[in-house]
């Protein structure tokens, strides 16, 4: 049994705690948070040890791995400390506040041969996996352009309060919502190397952006746009999608379906000429415990399997999380120039 702990019991942290707690290969031993209300709930209802100081938790518990789901500004010191103690780390996204910090963490994880993963869960949604496979199989020919979008109803009124409304702590739509899309683009289509234009807009928030619009070019010369708005209440929950346009066709993909348009039929892939729609039912990753969506369990299962097999995975490495931070900085820099 692997001994696991969690730092940060907000929405993601509690969700991770349930997934880790349900995992048959894990002895979930410790949680750390600053909220006494949340810690008291763990004290009352579970046998998990509770801490308000992560250093104490690391000192007392002999952890094999830790899940870090604190506000972004704490990622760097916590991840660094864990890595130096030879503990495998799953860190929530975005990875770090600055790419400088992220680069240090990537280096330590590599040097200490520790399993590392960042929580960009879209890579564990079957439709996006299938999209990646179809693009590798070159079904739509030479790609010339993409659109990466995410919309959702997070901030729909003029008020603010938590760290999410403070840009210096990793708040705002760019860090929270747009980072998911940047990461998807980066891993599924290609790494952005040039930001041609960027606009960050505050709609309801003060001090942080509620929308991000950017035009970019990838390492493979593909161009695309990023359109993200977390103040859009026409969406019931966060909805992320990619549209990829190629010379032989086009693919529209989101978490529930993948629609493929081909100028000519592709026999090998059994895809007709014209439109083919495939649904998540065909691609959902099997999990033993399901909470909110299989992707959340699947990413933790993957992390734990990698620890057990002593082999770093290829999805959501620190290095990939770090590169997303690099792109975020490029977008922020470009937006400042406007």
């Amino acid at each position: 049994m692997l001994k696991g702990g969690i730092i940060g019991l907000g929405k993601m942290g509690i969700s991770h705690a349930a997934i880790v707690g349900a995992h048959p290969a894990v002895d979930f031993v410790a949680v750390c948070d600053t909220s006494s209300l949340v810690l008291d709930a763990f004290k009352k209802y579970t046998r998990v040890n509770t801490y308000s100081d992560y250093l104490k938790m690391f000192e007392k518990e002999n952890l094999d791995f830790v899940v870090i789901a604190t506000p972004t500004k704490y990622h760097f010191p916590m991840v660094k400390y864990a890595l130096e103690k030879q503990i495998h780390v799953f860190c929530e996204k975005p990875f770090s506040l600055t790419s400088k910090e992220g680069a240090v963490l990537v280096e330590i994880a590599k040097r200490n041969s520790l399993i590392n993963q960042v929580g960009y869960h879209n890579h564990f949604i079957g439709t996006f996996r299938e999209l990646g496979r179809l693009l590798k199989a070159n079904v739509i020919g030479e790609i010339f352009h993409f659109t990466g979008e995410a919309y959702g109803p997070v901030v729909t009124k003029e008020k603010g309060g938590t760290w999410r409304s403070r840009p210096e702590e990793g708040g705002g739509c760019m860090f929270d919502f747009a980072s998911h899309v940047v990461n998807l683009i980066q891993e599924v289509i290609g790494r952005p190397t040039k930001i041609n234009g960027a606009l960050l807009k505050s709609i309801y928030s003060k001090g942080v952006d509620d929308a991000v619009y950017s035009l970019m070019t990838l390492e493979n010369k593909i161009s695309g746009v990023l359109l993200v708005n977390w103040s859009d209440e026409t969406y019931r929950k966060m909805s992320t999608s990619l549209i990829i346009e190629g010379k032989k066709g086009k693919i529209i993909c989101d978490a529930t379906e993948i629609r493929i348009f081909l100028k000519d039929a592709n026999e090998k892939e059994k895809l007709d000429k014209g439109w083919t729609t495939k649904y998540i039912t065909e691609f959902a990753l099997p999990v033993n415990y399901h909470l909110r969506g299989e992707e959340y369990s699947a990413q933790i299962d993957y992390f734990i399997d990698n620890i057990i097999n002593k082999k770093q995975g290829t999805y959501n490495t620190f290095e990939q999380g770090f590169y997303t931070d690099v792109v975020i900085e490029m977008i922020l820099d470009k937006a400042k120039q406007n």
Partner: protein
Amino acid sequence: MDKVLFGDNQFFAVNHVSDEKSRAQAIRFKDDSSIINVLDQAIDLGITTFMCTTHDRIANICDHLCADMEKYKDFKIFPCMPYAHKYANAVTELGIMGTIKQYVPGNIFGTFAKGGMAYLSKDFGKLMEIFIDAEMKMFKGIKTPVIFIQNVLVDMILGLRMYDIFAEYDEYIRKKYNAEPGYITMNMPALLDTLNSIGIKNPIICSSINKIGFRMAGGLTVYEKYLQEKEFRPIAMQVLAAGALGPNEAIEYLGKFPRIESVLFGASSKSHIKETKSLIEQYL
């Protein structure tokens, strides 16, 4: 429980296979009257149970039902709480304490004495009761013989192994609302084992049941074994596996498990409601 339970996902743009369909539903059910029209059609077809989330708009529907008690006298609601996205979005924006402050009626630290005390003494049982009462307010005057906790919460409590919360919930629902507690889950086998382990016998469990194993954590084989061998009152949902199965083959499959008491489904047109209802009555 009725064999046929009419659900509400279609009214609130919950569609597990298509964001586009979801938007079309949001447009179609913009007005409460359009929801009521479909409910009336369901009632005309002989459906008497509506299983719904504690979405803000359900409060308006409840007002409508209460205003015409003669017409709706046989109509029951199975509330499912909480409407999770309301809270999830609030937690992202306001944090956990901020969310409690926003949704607990009155001021948790002051005017609402029960809540204030609950927080100060860290009495989580009381805090839960306050949330349940707040969510149940909209159903006052309506028959609610079964009251469910939504899968997000059930599965979270299950994963966190905070099993006593199930016992507290179970007791409170029976005592205060004179109703049967129900549990919605994506992890039916694990949940049933857990509930049995804390002394909750023969529970009402609503879970995905379909022959392709979609959203059935633990796998199809274990689900089928439990449906055949274990003592509980299953309700089948997501029977069409988000559209991957046709209604006939989907419901015929359910017929293999005599223990299944009810099927939860949602539809927007009278013909669909009629078709699904008659299939359920044929096979179950």
